[in-house]
C-alpha cells in the first residue's frame, strides 16, 4: 500500500530494499490467539488430502512438484556426469538413454507444465481476482489426484526398467523397436494431461466469471492475463496429445500400424500430432513465466508496468500463433518445402510478441526505484536469459540454419534457455515473491540472493557451451561423443554442479523459514495486488469481504516510495540518535553513581545530560 507521507507515518516493517539493506521485518511477538488462516484452520492428513481450498491444493502441488523436480534433477545429474568423459565411463548406453528420457518426461510433464500454473496460479488467481476460491474446487482437487496417479504410474514405470524413447516418444522407435513399460509411461502422461486440462478449465472459468466488482479485464494483473493465455493452450492443445499418446498405446498393444510405415502407416504423422500439442506446450511452459515476471518487475521497480496492453495482447498473440508453428520441428523430414517455409515465417512472427514483452519489462525499470531483492534478481536474470533463448530461436526458425542445427546440442541449449533459464527462473522469482504470502514468513534474503546469483552463473556455464558444441555438430542424446566436444561438456557439467547447488539452497532455507523465518505481515513488499490486501497466510475464504476494485493493478509510485524511504531513514536515524544519546546519558549517570558522591560536579553532568535530551 502506498500511503502518503503526510501524517501518522509509523515505521512499519520494511521490505528488503537494497542488497546492503536487507532488513527483515520485525518479529511480531507470537500472539497467544493466532488468527485463523488456511494453514491452521484444521490439522491432520485428512484435512489436507480432502481439502477443497485452492491454497491448500496449491501447497499439495508445491510438495509433489518439488519431489518430481528432484527426480528429474537426479536424472539430469546422471546425464551430465556421464558426459564428463567422452567415453560414457559412468553408466551404460541403455541406462543413459533411460536417464535422459526420465529427465525429459518428468521435467516436462510433471514439473514445468504444472509448476507455475498449478502452484502459483492455483494459489493466487482467485486472490488476484478477489474470489473466494476457483470456480470448481472439487475439480481442482481432482486434478491434483490425476497428477498423482500419473506421477505414480510414470515413476513406477521408471523404477521398473524405464524407457528409452526420450520425452518425444517418436514412433516407430517407441512403438516397435524398444522394450520397456512404454504403455504405462504413456498412460501416466495421458492422465497427467487431464490434470493440466482441468486446471486450465478452472482458470478460464474463474477469470471470466469470478472477478471482483470493478475488476475489468484491463484492470487484471498481467499474471492473470498470462495464465489465461496458458489455460487456452492447455484446454485446446492437451487433448490432442492425450489422444496421440492413447493412439501410441493402441499401436503398441494392438500393433495397429497407424505409425508403422511397413503397413502403410506414417511415422511422421506421429510427429505432426505430437508437436501440434507439444509446441503450444512450450508456450504453456513459458507464458506463466512471463506472467510472473510482469508482477515482480513492477513491484521491485516500484512502478506501473510499461505498456500494459501490449504485454497483455502479446500473451494472446503468442497463444494463437503457437498453434501454427509446430512444423518447425520437422524441417529435416521430407515435409513439403512450401509447408516448411510457411512454418518458418510463422515461427519468426511468434518471436515478435516475446520481443515486445522483453522491451516493455526493460522499459519498466526506467525511472523506477529498483530494489535488488531475490525475486528481482531472478527476474532480471530471466529477462537476460530469455532474450538469449528467444533470439537463438531465430536460428532454428531459419530453415537453412536449422537443417544444420536440428537435433544438435544447439537445440538442447536453446530450449533449456527458454524452459530453465526463463521458466524456472521465473518460478523461483514467483516462489520467493509470494512465499511470505503463502506461508506467512520471510525467507532469509541473503541466502536467497546468493542462490539467485549462483543459479544465473551455473546456468550460463552449463548451457552457453552447449550452443558452441551444437554448432560444432554434437548431436543430442549421445551417450558417447567425439572427444572434439570434450571441453564444452566439461564446462557444462561444471556449470550443472553449480546449478545443483543453487537449487539445493532454496530447499533448505525455504524449509527453514517455515518455522524460523520472521513473520511477514500482510504485505511485506508493499505490493498493490489484491492478494496483498489480506493477512499472510490468508484466511480460508481469502478476504474478509469481497473487495471492490477501482483502479488498475500496478498503483506504484517510485517517487512516493523514495520520499517515504527517505522519511523512514530519517525517522530511523532520529530514533537511533535518541537511543544513542539516552545510552550516553545513562552511562554518565551510572558512572556518577559509582563515584559515590552526589558531588556537585556529577550533579551538573547529570543535569547537562538531561538537558541534552
Amino acid at each position, binding site marked *: *500500500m502506498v500511503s502518503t507521507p503526510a501524517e501518522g507515518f509509523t515505521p512499519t516493517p520494511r521490505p528488503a530494499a537494497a542488497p546492503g539493506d536487507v532488513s527483515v521485518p520485525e518479529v511480531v511477538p507470537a500472539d497467544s490467539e493466532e488468527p485463523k488462516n488456511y494453514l491452521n484452520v484444521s490439522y491432520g492428513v485428512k484435512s489436507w488430502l480432502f481439502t477443497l481450498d485452492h491454497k491448500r491444493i496449491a501447497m499439495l502441488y508445491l510438495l509433489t512438484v518439488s519431489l518430481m523436480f528432484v527426480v528429474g534433477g537426479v536424472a539430469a545429474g546422471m546425464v551430465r556426469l556421464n558426459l564428463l568423459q567422452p567415453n560414457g565411463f559412468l553408466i551404460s548406453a541403455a541406462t543413459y538413454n533411460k536417464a535422459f528420457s526420465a529427465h525429459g518426461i518428468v521435467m516436462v510433464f510433471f514439473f514445468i507444465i504444472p509448476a507455475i500454473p498449478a502452484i502459483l496460479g492455483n494459489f493466487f488467481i482467485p486472490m488476484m481476482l478477489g474470489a473466494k476460491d476457483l470456480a470448481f*474446487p472439487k475439480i481442482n482437487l481432482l486434478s491434483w489426484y490425476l497428477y498423482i496417479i500419473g506421477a505414480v504410474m510414470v515413476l513406477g514405470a521408471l523404477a521398473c526398467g524405464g524407457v528409452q524413447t526420450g520425452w518425444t516418444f517418436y514412433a516407430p522407435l517407441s512403438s516397435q523397436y524398444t522394450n520397456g513399460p512404454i504403455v504405462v509411461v504413456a498412460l501416466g502422461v495421458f492422465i497427467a494431461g487431464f490434470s493440466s486440462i482441468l486446471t486450465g478449465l478452472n482458470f*478460464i472459468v474463474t477469470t471470466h466469471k469470478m472477478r471482483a466488482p470493478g475488476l475489468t479485464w484491463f484492470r487484471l494483473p498481467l499474471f492473470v492475463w498470462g495464465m489465461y493465455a496458458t489455460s487456452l493452450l492447455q484446454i485446446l492443445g492437451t487433448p490432442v496429445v492425450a489422444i496421440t499418446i*492413447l493412439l501410441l498405446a493402441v499401436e503398441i498393444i494392438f500393433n495397429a*500400424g497407424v505409425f508403422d510405415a511397413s503397413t502403410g502407416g506414417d511415422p511422421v504423422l506421429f510427429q505432426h*500430432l505430437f508437436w501440434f500439442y507439444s509446441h503450444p506446450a512450450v508456450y504453456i511452459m513459458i507464458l506463466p513465466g512471463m506472467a510472473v515476471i510482469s508482477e515482480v518487475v513492477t513491484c521491485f521497480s516500484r512502478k506501473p508496468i510499461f505498456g500494459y496492453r501490449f504485454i497483455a495482447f502479446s500473451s494472446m498473440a503468442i497463444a494463437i500463433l503457437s498453434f501454427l508453428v509446430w512444423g518447425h520441428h520437422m524441417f529435416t523430414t521430407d515435409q513439403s518445402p512450401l509447408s516448411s517455409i510457411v512454418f518458418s515465417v510463422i515461427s519468426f512472427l511468434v518471436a515478435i510478441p516475446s520481443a515486445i514483452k522483453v522491451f516493455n519489462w526493460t522499459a519498466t525499470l526506467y525511472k523506477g526505484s529498483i530494489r535488488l531483492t531475490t525475486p528481482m534478481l531472478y527476474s532480471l536474470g530471466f529477462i537476460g536469459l530469455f532474450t538469449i533463448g528467444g533470439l537463438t530461436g531465430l536460428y532454428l526458425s531459419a530453415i537453412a540454419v536449422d537443417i544444420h542445427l536440428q537435433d544438435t546440442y544447439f537445440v538442447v541449449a536453446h530450449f533449456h534457455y527458454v524452459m530453465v533459464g526463463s521458466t524456472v527462473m521465473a518460478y523461483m522469482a514467483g516462489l520467493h515473491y509470494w512465499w511470505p504470502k503463502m506461508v506467512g514468513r520471510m525467507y532469509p534474503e541473503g541466502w536467497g540472493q546468493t542462490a539467485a546469483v549462483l543459479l544465473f552463473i551455473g546456468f550460463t556455464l552449463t548451457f552457453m557451451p552447449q550452443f558452441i558444441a551444437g554448432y560444432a555438430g554434437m548431436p543430442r542424446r549421445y551417450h558417447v561423443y567425439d572427444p572434439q566436444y570434450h571441453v564444452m561438456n566439461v564446462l557444462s557439467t561444471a556449470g550443472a554442479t553449480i546449478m545443483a547447488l543453487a537449487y539445493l539452497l532454496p530447499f533448505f532455507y525455504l524449509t527453514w523459514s517455515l518455522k524460523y523465518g520472521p513473520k511477514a505481515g500482510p504485505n511485506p513488499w508493499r505490493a498493490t495486488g489484491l492478494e496483498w490486501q489480506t493477512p499472510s497466510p490468508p484466511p480460508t475464504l481469502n478476504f*474478509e*469481504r469481497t473487495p471492490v476494485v477501482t*483502479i488498475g493493478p500496478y498503483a506504484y509510485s517510485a517517487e512516493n516510495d523514495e520520499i517515504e524511504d527517505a522519511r523512514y531513514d530519517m525517522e530511523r536515524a532520529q530514533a537511533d540518535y535518541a537511543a544513542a544519546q539516552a545510552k550516553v546519558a545513562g552511562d554518565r549517570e551510572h558512572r556518577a553513581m559509582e563515584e559515590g558522591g552526589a558531588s556537585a560536579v556529577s550533579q551538573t553532568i547529570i543535569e547537562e545530560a538531561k538537558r541534552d535530551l
Partner: protein
Amino acid sequence: MTSKAPVKHSVAPPPATTHYQGEAEHGHDHDDSHVLMHHFDHMEQQRESISLGMWTFLWTEIMMFSGLFFCYALFRWKFYDAYLLGSQQLDITLGTINTFVLLASSMTMALAVHAAQVKNRKALMGYMVGTLIFGGAFLGVKAVEWTADYHEGMVPTFEFMGPRGNWNPALWRTTHHARTDRKPEEATRLAQIKPDSTVTYDFKHKKEVSVQQVKMYFMLYFCMTGLHAIHMIAGVAILLVMLLMAAGGWFTNGNDQPVELFGLYWHFVDIVWVFLFPLLYLIAGFSMFGGAH
C-alpha cells in the same frame, strides 16, 4: 510527487486500490443456501460459471476427438479402398437403428431439460427414463454389433494374446456374401488369405486392398466408437444417479442447471455419433443390407 500519470494506472491516493463492500457475503442464510456453493457470491455467478465450465470441457472433448478424426481423414485419403472394404463389413442396419435411437434419446433429453425448467418432476423423471432406455439401447446394439464383429473376425489381434486372435478376413461379411452368392472360387480364395499378411485382397471391381490397411481402418473404427461408447457409458451412469436425485426432487426446485448441463453433454456425445456414423459406415453409400452397389 503528484503524479500526472493516467488515472488508470495512477499512483494510489490513499484510500487504496480497494475498499470493501459494506456487507459480509458469506453466511448465506437465504433459502437457496443449499444450492449456492460457498465460494460464489450469488446464484447467477454460479450458474454462469458452471455453464461456461461445461462449454470449455466440451471444447476439450472436441479437440480430443479431432485428433482421431484427423488420423481417420489422413488414412482414408491414403487407403480409400481399405476403408471402403472395412466399412462394408459393418452392419449398416444396426448402425442406422443406433443413429435413430441416439437421436431419439437426444429428443427425450431436451424434453427432460424443459421439464426441469418448468419444475415438472414426473415429466422430468419420465423423460430421463426415456433417455436412459434409449442410451442403454444404443449401448446394447453396440454390444451386439461388436460381438458380431468379433465373431466375424474383424477385431484386430491383441498382441499379448499371442498369434491367435479374432482377426480373420475369411469370416468377413464380404467373404460370406461371395459364398452365398455362389461364387465358390472367390470365397475359397478369400478364405485362404492369411490374417496378418500384407497380401492383397481382391474385391469387387478388381480393387486390391492390403489386409493390413483394412486392419488400420478397424483400429480407428474401434478407437472412435470405443471412445464414443466410453462417453456413452459415463453418460448413462451419471444419468442413473441423476434420476435417483430427480426422484428426490433435486432438479425441480429451481435448480435445473445440472439437467441442462448433462443435456449439453448428451447432445455432444450424440453429435459425435452423427459424425461417426456416415464416416465409418456409409463410405460406400447407404444401403440397408450392406455391401457396395
